[in-house]
């Protein structure tokens, strides 16, 4: 038994030595096709494992941050006196079909004492200078804009990005507007004969946002009963 063990150890040491020699001679090893395959596979595996670990480590945190962002935006478009419920929990989607439809719209319901006081929803305004512009807007139960914010866009920095609240207060001029107090021909930028300012050097962007907010109000009108019914 003990002899066998000694022999085994000898064999193992031998193998180890030959392996060491191969590694000492990296130049020859590097030219072997099987080694190259292994290295490439190992690099890919390493990258996948690190990305997996990175994803696991950051996923929860990213989701929390995004929920905080969403809540912060909702708080900007819904005055705090209007609700006492958890907006993120009290959410759902409304399917808006038809030619002018907005598709599936995520909706957040503001309630005070159980009664629906306002709703906030996300929509994307078509016709931006470089792609759609994502908006969140709050609308009171009687169809008046409480607040609007642009949450994502790809407009030209320095020109079209004045639609962001932290760059200009342009977006607040929608507050208090409704389909009743502003006729369809006033729902345009001033250049087109409407009520809303355009920016120097950028008309397409504000035009798209004005159209988007109007489309949002029309969506509210179409689905008023569904949106305001206590679920």
């Amino acid at each position, binding site marked *: 038994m003990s002899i066998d063990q000694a022999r085994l150890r000898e064999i193992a040491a031998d193998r180890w030595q030959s392996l060491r020699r191969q590694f000492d001679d990296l130049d020859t090893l590097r030219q072997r096709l099987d080694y190259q395959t292994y290295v490439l596979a190992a690099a890919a595996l390493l990258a996948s494992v690190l990305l997996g670990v990175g994803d696991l480590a950051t996923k929860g945190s990213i989701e929390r941050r995004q929920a905080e962002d969403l809540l912060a935006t909702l708080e900007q478009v819904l005055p705090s006196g209007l609700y006492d419920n958890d907006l993120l929990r009290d959410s759902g989607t409304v399917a808006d079909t038809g030619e002018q439809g907005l598709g599936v719209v995520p909706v957040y319901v503001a309630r005070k004492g159980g009664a629906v006081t306002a709703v906030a929803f996300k929509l994307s305004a078509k016709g931006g200078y470089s792609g759609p512009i994502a908006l969140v807007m709050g609308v009171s139960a009687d169809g008046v804009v409480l607040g609007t914010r642009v949450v994502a866009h790809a407009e030209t920095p320095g020109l079209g990005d004045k639609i962001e609240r*932290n760059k200009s207060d342009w977006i607040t001029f929608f507050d208090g507007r409704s389909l009743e107090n502003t006729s369809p021909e006033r729902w345009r930028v001033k250049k087109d004969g409407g009520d809303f300012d355009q920016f120097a050097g950028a008309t397409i962007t504000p035009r798209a946002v004005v159209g988007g907010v109007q489309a949002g109000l029309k969506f509210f009108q179409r689905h008023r009963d569904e949106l305001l019914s206590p679920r």
Partner: protein
Amino acid sequence: MNQEFRKIARDGLWDNNIVFSQSIGLCPLLAVTGTATNGLGMGLATAAVMVVCNVLISHGRALIPPEIRIPIFVVLIAMVVTLVDMVMNAWLHEMHKVLGLFIPLIVTNCAILGRVEAFASRRPLAQSAADGLMMGLGFTLALVVLGAAREIVGAGTLFADAALLMGDSFAWLETVVIDPYRGFLLMALPPGGFLMLGFILAGKKLIDRRLAARQQRAMPIGDSLAENS
């Protein structure tokens, strides 16, 4: 040793600047240099990725066979950029909201692959890290100079919204250069980037020529003859 690092710094910042001399990495360059602030943010993020990639690949350079080095570099660079994106999104969320748009663009920067291939894959760790840092800072310099030039001509401001990127303590950077100014749309759009880059490249050539001429004049005649022969 010291001289070596000085040469690395000189190469990265001026002599062999990614943009001004090598004229690579132009895709992210033209996309984000509408303002000096955006250029600064993109430049620093790129510099960070360059340092990490250079260190990683310089460290493993003995193991990587030359035949398959490019796919390995590409996989590693893409991994580093994605990790930086995720980590920033999770723990530096405010900064990510401003810079987030640019981070995936870093992958399109061939300068990173270029430095890894030309430098890090054949040089020791410390030099590679220094090269990544200096090349990254040189790239940042180019982005800020181009961004500032386009911003001044295009919008009449300089470092607009710097406070959004770096916090309120940097609000003093925001200046209005020309007031009132109606703006020059062309400069804010990508074609303006190409035009301005052309002027800046010409300017760099001019400076280099002046420097060379002055060096020639400063040299004793015998030396300059030896140099020319």
